[in-house]
């Protein structure tokens, strides 16, 4: 009889060990220290924002341009995570109390960042639909494939990158 509970527990432990090993590698890594100074982190964060916006725009140039933009965005995303040693995305059990405090402080900024961007986007949509077209009984928004891709990958880049972006931007973050 297969003991699923026991196997699940073993798999969870193996996963935790692997996460710990990866975290240790990140903390000890010196290959990408060039990206980790306060100014360098800000440069990486600025580049990530620019590349993310360019990636969203690239979807309006067709699927091939969009996939190309996504590939470049992937490189910027990896650089962003390296600049903050992926600290913003690590679980409690691999961090000490200082690192947990850094991560948690970052999450407050990341939440504000995401909610501001989403709030502004919704406000713009509201103005367009309700205020600008107030005389129409109903407004139809047409979302074609390019627009749907741009929206999906834009939100994807924002949500996935926000914690590392907030941490990279904080000049006094202790990483």
């Amino acid at each position, binding site marked *: 009889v297969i003991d699923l509970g026991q196997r699940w527990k073993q798999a969870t432990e193996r996963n935790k060990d692997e996460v710990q090993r990866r975290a240790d590698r990140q*903390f000890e890594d010196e290959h990408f220290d060039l990206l980790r100074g306060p100014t360098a982190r800000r440069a990486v964060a600025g580049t990530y924002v620019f590349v993310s916006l360019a990636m969203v725009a690239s979807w309006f140039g067709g699927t091939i341009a969009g996939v190309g933009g996504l590939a470049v965005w992937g490189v910027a995303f990896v650089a962003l995570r390296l600049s903050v040693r992926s600290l913003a995305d690590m679980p409690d059990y691999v961090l*000490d*109390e*200082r*690192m947990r*405090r850094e991560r948690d402080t970052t999450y407050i900024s990341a939440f504000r960042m995401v909610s501001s961007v989403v709030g502004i986007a919704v406000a713009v949509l509201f103005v367009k639909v309700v205020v600008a077209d107030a005389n129409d009984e109903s407004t139809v928004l047409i979302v074609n494939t390019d627009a749907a891709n741009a929206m999906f990958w834009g939100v994807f880049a924002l949500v996935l990158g926000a914690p590392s972006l907030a941490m990279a931007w904080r000049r006094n973050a*202790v990483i």
Partner: protein
Amino acid sequence: VSRRLRTDPGERVDNTIADVRERAGMSRNELADAVGVHYQTVGYLERGEYNPSLALALRISAVLGCTVEELFSLDTSDFQKGHKQ
């Protein structure tokens, strides 16, 4: 050498971890392993750039063989100045 960290307006925590650790003949790595933090965190503590939790402060003092009061002290001189004004 005592280093300072601003916590609340007018309140600073001084610490003497570096001096006490060196007197005890321990490296940052050894202290970090003994109290269960990353070695970089010991550096941040010693420079006064990070203020430890009470539990960590107690662990550090136990490892270094001294009291918490010997390692950390609250400097309220700015706070008192503010109240006088």
